[in-house]
């Protein structure tokens, strides 16, 4: 308890220093400073500066990949005459491409709404461990449930991978605005992709369609490899990847949870053993 209280105190102090009242107890900048805000400018704008840093981080290879992926999704919408605004809303609100494809694909094949809702629920189950593992970075100095829910909304594959890479190196007060900036940036890019796909879907040449579809798996393979540091990460990656084809026959959603929980637990146990070895 004492440790937690000390931590809270340190967080409060850190916050005060950001607001530009360097009292006698103002601590040194946190370790692993990511992109230090220019020292000369006044501090109150630092939140918006972190937001912009996050938005700029969205203009990256993962952002490009999302754009391309959502072009494909926009084409899917046109294919079944799904209304434009509702299609855009699905990107904004659902913000998980697999769930969106299940929804639109289900509607296209005349599946009932209840089975579609169940399939979406199962496919989005994977969001829970993703949000859980980013949550400690997204609390900020003062807890706010609404803000935590907003930060969590942006968590999907891309934000999860980029978040784990970038957030830990960032000072506490920069993490939430950075995450919101990254999320808003990527959402804007994806909305543009959805709209672009909706209006220019007509006839993509096969080689381009193949290329667009392959962007997600190739870029995520590389992002995950780049993000892996410890033995646990590598074992989890290998087990998740190798067990997925084995359970492919099982009905959607739970099979992947099986790979995740099984592979993740084994990776965690092996990693803990390695850490505790003298």
């Amino acid at each position, binding site marked *: 308890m004492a440790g937690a209280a000390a931590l809270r105190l340190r967080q409060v102090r850190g916050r005060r220093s950001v607001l530009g009242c360097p009292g006698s107890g103002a601590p040194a900048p946190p370790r692993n400073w990511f992109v230090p805000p220019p020292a000369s400018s006044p501090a109150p704008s630092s939140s918006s500066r972190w937001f912009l840093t996050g938005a700029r981080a969205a203009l990256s290879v993962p952002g490009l990949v999302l754009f391309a992926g959502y072009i494909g999704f926009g084409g899917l919408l046109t294919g079944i005459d799904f209304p434009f605004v509702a299609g855009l809303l699905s990107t904004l609100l659902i913000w998980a491409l697999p769930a969106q494809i299940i929804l639109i694909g289900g509607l296209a094949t005349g599946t009932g709404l209840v089975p579609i809702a169940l399939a979406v629920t199962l496919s989005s189950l994977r969001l829970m461990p993703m949000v*859980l593992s980013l949550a*400690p970075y997204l609390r900020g100095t003062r807890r706010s449930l609404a803000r935590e829910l907003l930060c969590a909304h942006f968590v999907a594959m891309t934000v999860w991978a980029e978040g784990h890479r970038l957030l830990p190196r960032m000072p506490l007060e920069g993490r939430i605005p950075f995450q919101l900036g990254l999320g808003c940036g990527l959402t804007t890019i994806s909305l543009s992709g959805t709209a672009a796909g909706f209006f220019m879907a007509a006839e993509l040449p096969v080689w381009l369609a193949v*290329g667009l579809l392959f962007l997600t798996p190739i870029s995520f393979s590389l992002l*995950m490899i780049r993000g892996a540091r410890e033995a646990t990460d590598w074992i989890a990656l290998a087990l998740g990847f190798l067990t997925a084809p084995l359970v492919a026959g099982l009905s959607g959603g739970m099979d992947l949870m099986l*790979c995740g929980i099984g592979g993740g637990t084994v990776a965690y146990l092996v990693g803990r053993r390695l850490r505790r070895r003298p």
Partner: protein
Amino acid sequence: MIDFSSEWTAILIVILVGFLPSEIWRMLAVIAGRRMDEGSEAFLWVKAVATALLAAVVARLIFVPTGALVEVPLWLRLLCIVGGIAAFTAIRRSVLAGVVVGEAILVLGAWWLG
């Protein structure tokens, strides 16, 4: 067959059948994760599970593809991934380089196979 051609019906479907069933997991995670600390054992386990899960999702996209990718043989899909990783490792761990090389192998391979 559900008639989703009117904008408002479609919006309602998106919210009830798409948004709520996915967002519920994010909300539950926020509520369940409020007490979890970065670096705690529970955190390390959840992170390992999320990593394995994401790897499984990606493997699914490669091994059981959809759409036009079905026409590309499995060995070519795997070759693209291997080539992409090799380029990523060789060229300063650049994701862009890996993606470009993997995509080039795919497009050239698909073209060559006809």
